[in-house]
């Protein structure tokens, strides 16, 4: 439990409140390390000596049995942290920051109660009730809205017992209840998401730039897209192909999109529609284009033989995961796809996935806090760019982020005993793909793209073949490129 608490306080709370700078890195690592070491800020607890506050009382009042020990420790330390807050905060924002922190601690306490050593579901229930009184998904600060979604997700866990039904639709498949969103909602939210944040564009453009560079001299290009969704990524690729200066002009582009037999695709339309759209768009700009579909089995194993290959074409595998508006794809499915793809000897593999913090052995609570931190950064990034458009952000949160939070949380909860699948990029390396360099132009483009948005976004290059997009010190999304070990480049 101590571990969980420590890791919780290592969380960079400065992302929650705007006026506090709780976290400082006083380690010997140079400042450039802060990006990596988001998890290790130092707070000088000893220097603070404010009196206990109502949070302690709150926790104590919630404890009816002996589970209070850990929580008392939480309470003690939170009183310190809260006083840290109040030391820096203005008088007006004092309440706001305080509340934000309190929410975090309540959430953490609920998470602990759900899965901690003393599985006190009753306690969790109580905490969640309290939380629900404090938060709403539409009003309030980022933290409050975020807490609302997390609360609801936790509630789903509580009721579904980690299973996945109950009256909450949030539990099992985000896909399932995402479909319930009206198309207009989703469209609007998606448009908003794209305009308010660089996540989608970053993933698409980085991959596209890598693809363009890899196929500069090819006449025929074949892209196998793992999850084409609405096909937006390819609009800009086509545009770039039509106007490219080097190499054979206007190469033929072929896209094969994987489609899943099982419905529950959360998207604006079907794959066929996407295909039609892409065909129309290509025609409109004069790009030779053809579109194919490859159906996956119900268990989503990928059979490479199902892909029609043409000699002389450059094969590219495109794998977008975890963009905010995407559905969840099980790691097995992704793994099956990528291994199968390897046998096809693609020229290039582009992978975009979300970055998770170090899993460590924080268990469920650790991962819970990591998730909280992740989405807190996302919320902050949206707010920083669009502070006045609270409703718009609420919509995006409701349509995309909320379901993801719930889905991720449910998955974390279910798989907390076993090791979660490692990031796909590590998996790719392990399977034998070779990293391919991110070019100067690509990195440059990413920086320029971020320059269109808020200052807080960072792009960082990792290990030569990966660009990581992050908000302040939190890494959020990474785009990496790979080649087959023996592809003919």
């Amino acid at each position: 439990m101590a571990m969980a608490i420590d890791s919780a306080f290592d969380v960079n709370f400065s992302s929650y409140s705007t006026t506090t700078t709780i976290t400082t890195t006083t380690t010997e690592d140079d400042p450039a390390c802060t990006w990596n070491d988001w998890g290790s800020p130092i707070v000088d607890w000893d220097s603070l000596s404010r009196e206990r506050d109502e949070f302690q009382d709150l926790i104590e009042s919630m404890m009816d049995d002996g589970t209070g020990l850990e929580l008392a420790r939480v309470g003690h330390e939170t009183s310190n942290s809260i006083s840290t807050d109040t030391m820096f905060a203005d008088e007006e924002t004092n309440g706001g920051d305080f509340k934000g922190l309190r929410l975090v601690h309540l959430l953490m306490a609920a998470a602990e109660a759900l899965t901690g050593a003393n599985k006190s579901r009753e306690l969790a229930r109580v905490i969640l009730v309290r939380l629900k009184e404090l938060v709403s998904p539409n009003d309030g600060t980022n933290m409050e809205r975020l807490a609302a979604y997390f609360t609801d997700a936790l509630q789903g866990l509580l009721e579904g017992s980690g299973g996945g039904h109950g009256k909450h639709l949030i539990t099992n498949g985000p896909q399932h209840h995402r479909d319930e969103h009206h198309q207009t909602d989703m469209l609007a939210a998606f448009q908003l998401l794209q305009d308010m944040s660089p996540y989608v564009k970053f993933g698409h453009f980085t991959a596209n730039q890598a693809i363009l560079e890899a196929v500069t001299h090819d006449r025929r290009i074949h892209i196998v897209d793992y999850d084409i969704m609405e096909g937006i990524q390819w609009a800009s690729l086509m545009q770039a192909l039509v106007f490219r200066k080097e190499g054979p002009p206007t190469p033929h582009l072929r896209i094969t999109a994987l489609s899943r037999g099982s419905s529950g695709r959360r998207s604006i339309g079907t794959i066929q529609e996407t295909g039609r759209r892409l065909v129309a768009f290509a025609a409109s700009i004069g790009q030779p284009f053809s579109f194919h579909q490859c159906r996956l089995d119900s268990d989503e194993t990928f059979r490479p033989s199902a892909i029609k290959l043409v000699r002389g074409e450059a094969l590219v595998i495109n794998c977008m995961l975890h963009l905010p508006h995407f559905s969840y794809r099980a790691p097995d499915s992704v793994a099956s796809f990528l291994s199968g793809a390897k046998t096809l000897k693609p020229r290039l593999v582009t992978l975009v996935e979300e970055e998770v913090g170090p899993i460590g052995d924080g268990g469920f609570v650790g991962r819970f806090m990591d998730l909280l931190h992740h989405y807190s950064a996302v919320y902050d990034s949206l707010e920083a760019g669009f502070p006045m458009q609270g409703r718009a952000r609420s919509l995006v949160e409701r349509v995309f982020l909320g379901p993801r939070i719930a889905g991720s949380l449910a998955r974390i909860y279910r798989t907390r005993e076993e090791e979660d699948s490692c990031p796909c990029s590590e998996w790719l390396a392990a399977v034998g793909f070779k990293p391919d360099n991110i070019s100067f132009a690509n990195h440059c483009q990413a920086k320029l793209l971020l320059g269109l948005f808020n200052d807080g976004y960072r792009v960082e290059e990792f290990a030569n073949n990966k660009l990581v997009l992050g908000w302040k010190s939190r890494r959020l999304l990474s785009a990496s490129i790979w080649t087959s070990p023996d592809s003919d480049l």
Partner: protein
Amino acid sequence: MFQPKKPSTMNSHDRPMCVQGDSGLVLTTDPKPRLRWTVELHERFVDAVTQLGGPDKATPKTIMRVMGVKGLTLYHLKSHLQKFRLGKQPHKEFNDHSIKDASALDLQRNAASSSGMMARSMNEMQLEVQRRLHEQLEVQRHLQLRIEAQGKYMKSILEKACQTLASENMATGGYKGMGNQGVPDMGAMKDFGPLNFPPFQDLNICGGDQLDLQHMDRPSVDGFMPNSDNICYGKRRPSPYSSSGKSPLIWSDELRLQDLGTAPPCLGPQDDPFKTEQIQIAPPPIDRSTKIESISEIYEAKPLLSGDGIGEKKFEASPKLERPSPRGAPLQTERMNPVINTGSVTQGRNSPFGLSIANI
């Protein structure tokens, strides 16, 4: 971005005198002896860093241990590691704030800090800088084009969806009552009380004066939103929901959308041509007739918002994309809707790409 501006210890202008100490370290002889990162030393450094798993995993402490060079302190390693991280590939360093000077500065810094490379002559560096600048400008231009292309594509999605909704609405005959709006996910949130506002029902994404009733695929949701026909782009409608009379969702003029420059416009209001700056998202009253306004509004707002400066540049940069269009508006939203008072955009242009919604 982190830009250490301290003078490099290895400025090519003033090469301090160096002596080699017993430990093999080369130190300068100025009053404050500074460590000189020779090629050898740097190679050992790189080796150690690689052993440790890369510059991001390695820390000064571990590097020191692995290198095992006497006289090398944490401070040396700290700063060198930092430079190494930032400049290990000097080509990649790029400052987007001030392209010109920063590039020069970066290159100089990187050339100096990557001690594995020999110091370059000023000429070489200048050429390099110019090359980089040119490349950056190219990238910028391409980025604009790509964003526009994406925006255009998005528009086609929205238009189709709008048609779908409009046709469905015609079929269903309009209002289905507000109430629960059949949005099931609300159930999950009902603990938080009813939403204060319905979702983007008022996002008018129907285009054109006349709607094509061609039947599109129905959206895969049964919770059909009752007011989709009345989704109004918030032009002049008071919201029945909002007690204050203001729209629940307000896009203020200070929208960062303006700063988004070439990003395709979303719901950004237009200052001049559009009267209001509000996007209403409350459902209009039942008796209101549908005022169809074009989704192009959404997109048009952007290039115009971004100011003619950027806008114009952008337009010029993409002549081919906009073949017949005199103004070269990259986003083919232009003439979507004559209803829209788009003062600064010529109306009645045909979409060169055959996406003429208005003719549907």
